[in-house]
């Protein structure tokens, strides 16, 4: 990184910090200064608003251990994607299934496919023609989080919705 951009970043952080300082009750609730920065920035900065009729912002569906079942939160996410796809009939979607690292690689490749198919089936139920959906599996080969703990495993059990 060039020194000038480093300076610029520092300046931005300083601005964020001063924004926090004006909200003592928030700073008090967060454990570290860093978190306070993030919260302040979210309060004061631009909100990540969703354009009405635009592409949904949630692009991942997560799963319970050894499961390909879609829970109610995930169903809502998929309903939003189905609405978008119905409004944009020329757009196709790739569904990419992934697993956590536990268990054997080839069996996980099969589980990842089952997760992708589960999402694909739900989108079909929601009215999307199956010819617009392709599913594939990477098993445990492409983790989002390379840690070896519960938090990483939870993050890695997923289907990526790729437009």
């Amino acid at each position: 990184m060039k020194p000038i951009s480093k300076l610029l970043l520092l300046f931005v952080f300083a601005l964020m910090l001063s924004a926090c300082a004006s909200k003592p009750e928030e700073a008090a609730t967060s454990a570290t200064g860093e978190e306070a920065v993030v919260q302040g920035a979210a309060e004061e900065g631009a909100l990540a608003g969703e354009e009405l009729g635009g592409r949904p912002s949630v692009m991942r569906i997560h799963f319970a251990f050894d499961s390909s079942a879609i829970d109610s939160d995930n169903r809502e996410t998929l309903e939003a994607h189905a609405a978008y796809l119905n409004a944009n009939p020329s757009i196709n979607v790739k569904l990419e299934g992934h697993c956590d690292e536990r268990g054997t690689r080839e069996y996980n490749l099969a589980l990842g496919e089952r997760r992708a198919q589960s999402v694909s089936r739900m989108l079909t139920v929601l009215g999307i023609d199956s010819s617009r959906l392709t599913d594939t599996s990477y098993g445990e080969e492409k983790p989002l989080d390379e840690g070896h703990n519960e938090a990483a495993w939870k993050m890695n059990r997923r289907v990526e919705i790729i437009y």
Partner: protein
Amino acid sequence: MRRNFCVNLISIQKSFDMTNFRKILFTSFVTVLALVSTPAHAIITITITEGGEGGTPIAISPFKWQGSGSVPTDVSGIVTADLRRSGRFAPLTREQMPAEPFKDKDVVFKDWRLVKATALVIGHVTPVKPDQYRVEFRLYDVFRERQLAGYRYTVKADRLRSVAHQISDLVYEKLTGEKGVFGSRIAYVSQERGKDGKRLYRLSIADSDGVNPQTILSSAEPLMSPAWSPDGKQLAYVSFEQKRSMVYLQDLKQGKRVRVAAFRGINSAPAWSPDGARMAVTLSKDGNPEIYIIDIAKKSLQRLTFNRAIDTEPAWSPDGRDLVFTSDRAGGPQIYRKPVAGGQAERLSFEGNYNARPSYSPDGQQITMITRRNGKYNVGVISLADKSMQVLTDTRLDESPSFAPNGQMLLYATERQGRGVLASVSADGRVRHLFTLTEGDIREPAWSPYNP
């Protein structure tokens, strides 16, 4: 330190003239291999458990270097490490040795009986001309006071390691009656981060002690499931280079490769039949993962399993009659066996609710697989005679176990300090070794046939 490795530079695709499975079954490639020098990713071997208690005491007297300067390769050191790793022997340390003979006439057997060595290996390495060395060794039965083996090799420096492994194999065979596997090699997959932070996957082959690694394929997309052909001349593997799983065969000498399965869905889990004529694979082209058998010469496909569950991870019995595989037809993954000619699938695993990735021992009497115990994934062995299971490891995330060609050791992958490492365990579970890379993760070891 630098070393050479091969990088897959260009793939030129050429379709076979086929009616049915054009492009999806058997597409040949000419892979151009180039030698590129890169920083080393040497494998480091770490002993975890010493096998001293149960191993047979043996003395390997340091081979005398009869040249000037330093010896190019520590031959007797490699022999010592090989024999210790097998779990069958407990080599004496230098401090425990009463003498360091290297000539036949200098051996005093009663001294070696006093330190309880049952066998003695002596030898020397002599330079004969530039880059040409003579290695001589003799193996003795200390109690009967007689020579069991003695050989001389004349080789270039880069073959000295192979000579050492061959000596280990000879000693092992003379003393145990079983063939040694030290001259065989291991294939494995590794993953590291490139300078740009992106993942780089490599398929490599190394000596049985993890030394001398050579990369035969590298890719920005995952590589999986290397499987040796029975003659040791080809590797089958799964590559995601086309953004989904496909099965390839690669000739190791020429680097030429053929894509054998590229159907819709999963193309994976290759396993060669013992005669090398057929290959079992997992394909989900009909909707869910099923096991198929490809006839390599005829380029034909036969479906072996028929149900709505996951069927995958096939492995052949040594006689080529049966396949064992993983299926979740009863809920969770368990091990099943089915005749290649067709018939009923028989369930083989009954202990625990997660048993997967089976493969046979060379004598066909046992099956090793991954079994889950108290949330840990470990290497287990099922005896086919009574279906009883023995768990050989106690680490947390073990994967991909397979028997050595002589059935006396198993290789598997595990995780240590947050990284993927390879490990070997003696068949009785006593002696364990780790193979770790200087950087990156290492996984999916596959043991070659004898002396490929």
